[in-house]
């Protein structure tokens, strides 16, 4: 005789007149606890806002700086450092750097003019206020100092 799994029936649970399962007290308590636990979990971990499926859902992301703005800031920092270096070089070596400074910045190099970053004394000394320098500009200064060991460069506070 072929095995027919439908013949073998599991133990049928007792049911009430209403068709509800008649649970012993301990199982009824478990059933209540299951419901309470489910409600508690749902309260602890509510769903994220349902995504609109009519259009492509986009996950919330940290607001990123626009790429163009990032490039502009980087260019400004590099330009500032280069300008600072050029101004210093023009102060130290006016004849060598004047054409270059004029080409890049479009400004006539004037040793007597004051600049927010540098001031020139009649004795040919150049002073730089480090307060206004940004990181890249400071780096450019330090490289300059390292590359010109013959010149007397001092730092005062």
């Amino acid at each position, binding site marked *: 005789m072929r095995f027919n799994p439908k013949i073998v029936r*599991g*133990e*049928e*649970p007792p*049911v009430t007149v209403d*068709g509800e*399962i008649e*649970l012993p007290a*301990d*199982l009824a308590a*478990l*059933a209540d*606890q*299951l*419901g309470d*636990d*489910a409600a*508690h*979990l*749902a309260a*602890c*971990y*509510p*769903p*994220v806002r*349902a*995504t*609109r*499926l*009519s259009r492509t*859902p986009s996950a919330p992301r940290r607001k990123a700086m626009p790429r163009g703005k990032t490039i502009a800031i980087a260019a400004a920092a590099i330009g500032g450092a280069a300008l600072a270096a050029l101004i210093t070089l023009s102060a130290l070596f006016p004849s060598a750097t004047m054409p270059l400074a004029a080409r890049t910045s479009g400004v006539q190099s004037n040793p007597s003019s004051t600049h927010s970053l540098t001031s020139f004394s009649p004795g040919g000394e150049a002073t730089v206020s480090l307060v206004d320098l940004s990181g890249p500009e400071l780096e450019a200064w330090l490289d300059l100092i390292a590359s010109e060991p013959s010149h007397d460069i001092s730092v005062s506070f």
Partner: protein
Amino acid sequence: MDRIDIDEATRTHFARIHRAALVLSGNPWDADDLAQETFLILARQACSFEGRSNLYTWLYGILLNLDRRQRRRLGMVRRKLRVLWGNQPASPAATPGANTVSEVKEWKKSLWARVARLPDGQRQALVLRFSEGLRYEEIAEVLQCPLGTVKSRIFHGLAALRRVLDQEGEDCRQMPDFPSEDLSHAV
């Protein structure tokens, strides 16, 4: 049959599907994935819904299938890991982070963590009945089984849950008391 308004269906049923997914999976991250995948399937296969049942019973059916598939996949990963580690019990530090089920503390403390050990049929019946509050007829529709089978699974599922809890109680009672001997020299 009227075309299903996906957005309206999502607004109406997402919370309940998410709750069921949370109870099934044990952590909110998998629950989010399961719930969202359920509604993605709804969006893709809305035309195949014939309207003979309630929409939410159809959604529960999709969710349970996804959960079953995920458990099967995790089971395969665990078996592969056992092969790799030579059938040694894997400590939490030894198993990789990916594909490792990470249940949250609240779920682990709840009865649903014990329900997770039950057979699929009983587990799903208990979830649909006591987490989602579905009627027996609706559960039968979701599980594609007779009404008597639903009641039997619920009854025997609760009984099995009782046995799991009793066994846990036994395990706790068998644990040795904190030794009175000074073991500081062993550290």
